[in-house]
């Protein structure tokens, strides 16, 4: 694989891999980004060992899992997920095709179909990168109401993504 081709792989998969890394690191965005960076470097250094018949995003997720296990071994305070739990996350990922870069376009489309109150909550909290308290204040609702709306929104978005997958499982 050439450098330019790998550059395309990085560009196409960076966001989905960051999302995956966030899940397995317990939501730490900064840590997730660092691990994804390390994984890309490791992948490039070992690109000659990659089996081109495999799905590269799956291979990269494997590197990410290994990188996180390394972090957990070095730091006993970090909790690594068990093999069964990682398998479960992997299954959920592929169920909604969150391993493909097109997931964000589909997610944007699903967001457009949300009811207004849920859409506003998602926009304020996620796009504004606000805390629950700040977002609730901006929406003039209490924190518990916002959390509930966000949970309902995430469920609705997931169901929408499941309905719009392109491949057969």
């Amino acid at each position: 694989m050439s450098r330019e081709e790998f550059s395309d792989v990085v560009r196409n998969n960076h966001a989905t891999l960051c999302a995956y890394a966030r899940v397995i690191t317990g939501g730490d965005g900064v840590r997730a980004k660092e691990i994804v960076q390390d994984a890309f470097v490791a992948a490039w250094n070992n690109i000659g060992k990659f089996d081109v018949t495999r799905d590269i995003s799956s291979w990269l997720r494997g590197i990410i899992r290994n990188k996180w296990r390394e972090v957990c071994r070095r730091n006993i305070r970090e909790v690594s997920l068990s093999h069964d739990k990682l398998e479960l996350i992997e299954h959920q990922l592929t169920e909604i095709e969150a391993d493909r870069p097109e997931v964000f376009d589909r997610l944007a489309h699903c967001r457009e179909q949300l009811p207004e109150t849920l859409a506003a909550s998602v926009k304020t909290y996620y796009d504004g990168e606000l805390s629950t308290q700040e977002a609730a204040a901006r929406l003039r609702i209490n924190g518990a109401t916002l959390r509930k709306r966000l949970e309902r929104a995430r469920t609705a978005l997931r169901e929408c993504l499941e309905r719009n997958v392109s491949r057969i499982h």
Partner: protein
Amino acid sequence: MKSQEECYQDDLMDCLLKEQARKDREQVICEIEHAIMSQTLAQAREHPTVDWKRLILSGAVAAAVVLGFGYILGASLHPKLEGPHTNTGEDSEKLIPMWVTYRVEYVGMDKELETKLPREIAYKRPIAPVLLNKKEDRQNTSFPEMAISAFSPYDDDPSRFSTAETEQPRPVLVTQFPGKLVDQNWRTPLTQPLSSFSLDSENASYANIRHVICEGLPVSENLVLIEECINAFSYDYPAPRGDQDFTLNANILTCPWNDRHMLIKIGIQGRVMSASDNSNVSSLIAKDAAIQIEFNPQRVESYRLIGYALCLSDEERTAAGGSSCLDIHAGHQVTAIYEVIPLRPVFAAPKPGQRLKYQAAAPSPHSASRVQEWLTLKLNYQDPENGESRLQQAALKGEAIMWHHADVDSRFASTVALFGMKLRGMDGLEGITWDHVLAMAQYDTTISPHQDRGEFISLVKALKSRQR
């Protein structure tokens, strides 16, 4: 109770949404980069280049550019930055590669997204002396939601620069500001009683001026934002007490560069967090804060705000909605200075629909007291917790204090203002030399505990030595 599988599903969606927001933000930044690259290069090709001897730069310090993964795998992932625009081709022999900070202005951008986008972006750019501030140029940008302007801080005269190559290259960080800056005009309260200024208190301009002076380079007037010079220093305002979120401070003193004028220094101080405060507690004390000053035409003939030079005309700025609102955190402080020509003008009727304190249509029982007032400050903001609108206001009365008898902070702030005004070549300073500025700056050296003010004096000395 949710099952573990449901929890992971929820976590996954949460992470996807967060990544989507981050991705959208980075996409905008990439678009900004593209616009800068295409605009600057196009302008460089249109204008004749100057045969300068190249200043050697190191590849070291730069402001952060949020491009995510690009840095790990090298510049090849981002050929826009390190490609033929910068180091190859005939352009590079005549253009100077420099780190340039661009100020970004967003127009029509989604407000939620805009708060997360950078206001300044630094790039290593080949620079030619081009000026992009024409309104038609702003409208023809490749990214329709944004206007980017860039120009060199240096004039077309290459003889003003040192042509000696340094053995150890040092990075040169120059801040560019969009377009040519136009100082605030004199205004009369009869026709323009209301004034405002941004509550932002950045100080990048002063840092760049300091750097340029220390490097022995000329200070371009467009590098100078006087309000950022004034706010590069802290001043001792009283802290708010009780239910107060702010203290509004104003004092009037004689103008050291014009016997007929006066200076009004305005300071706004937010609540100051103690060292024992929990760092996790939000320090936000006000949202969408904006200041407005109404001048009394019975005491003020004309006034001008020192600094806050505009790229747009006053009419355009008014049509665009006036000064922007700002979220303010504890400890925030901003200082502004007005130069005032005092007078007792003829009383005039207000315009229809205009609600003014000093120009009521009917005689007011409070008019006698109001005649003594120079101005009224009004600070509007929203409580960050419940969104309730709040207003703090204060009126300035009394006579001007002689400059030499004013408080230390007022003397120093006015000296910094004069420093900036001279660098910008503003009018009204005939006969004022750097000797005068130095004398003002040194007036309080024996009692000033502020080390940064001592450094300011060094800069003035350097400028004074140049005028010889």
